[in-house]
């Protein structure tokens, strides 16, 4: 895993990772690699904690959409949590806030 991932934590029914830093086109290819690895090794619930992500552009969002689709293909689940208002706003503008399961924090993500 790259310097994008700050924390990793196994869950009862899956896995949780924390991302860190601005995620734009300069880092989304790395995020893509990390998420491919994670979705391969996580059959159940994949929680992505974005508390430490102050900024994300559409290349980061595209990477998350791709991971979501991969998770769903093998009947897994993907949950986003801890989105800062600026980051949430891009999901809303792209009307992806209804496509993703987006919850407040880690606790909610474990049960979502």
């Amino acid at each position, binding site marked *: 895993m790259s310097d994008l991932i700050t924390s990793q934590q196994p869950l009862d029914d899956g896995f949780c990772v924390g991302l860190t830093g601005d995620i734009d086109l300069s880092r989304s290819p790395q995020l893509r690699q990390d998420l491919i690895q994670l979705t391969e090794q996580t059959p159940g619930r994949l929680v992505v904690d974005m508390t430490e992500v102050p*900024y994300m552009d559409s290349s980061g969002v595209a990477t998350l959409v791709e991971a979501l689709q991969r998770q769903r293909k093998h009947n897994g689940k993907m949950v986003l949590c801890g989105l800062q208002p*600026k980051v949430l706003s891009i999901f809303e503008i792209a009307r*992806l806030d209804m496509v993703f399961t987006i919850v407040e924090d880690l606790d909610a993500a474990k049960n979502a």
Partner: protein
Amino acid sequence: MSEDFDIELRLLSQPRYLCVARAAVGAAVEKLGYSDGLCGQIMLAVDEAVANVIRHGYDGRADQPIWVRFRPTGLPDEASPAGFVIVIDDLAKQVDPAVIKSRDLEDVRPGGIGVHIIQKIMDHVSYEPRPEGGMRLTMIKNPTAPRRDSTSSER
């Protein structure tokens, strides 16, 4: 023409310099009086536009120039932010402006939302081939008029 702008930034076409473009524009619009949330959105629009030049215009070539120009418009008013114009020029391949558009938002797949984001955030967005080669994107944000309805027309 470049002299008409208060700020002109030339960047190499590399993803690592996206942060420079959005930081410069973010500082300029914060100074104009835009809220934190709006500054973030405007920075996002600039990021998406420059990223598209790198990926689509230049097909990922890393040694090409991109120009970002900025000028405030309208009377800066104590109570409300002035408007601004941002022009982004390149020397990339010329395309029909009609093909520059995002996917249908209902058809969810990775990518295909950048142009939609730009249009949603700015009041006016237009692409055109430049006579001297390359493309030009012009983005306009109208001055906020606090007396009247503050959301502006061309959304």
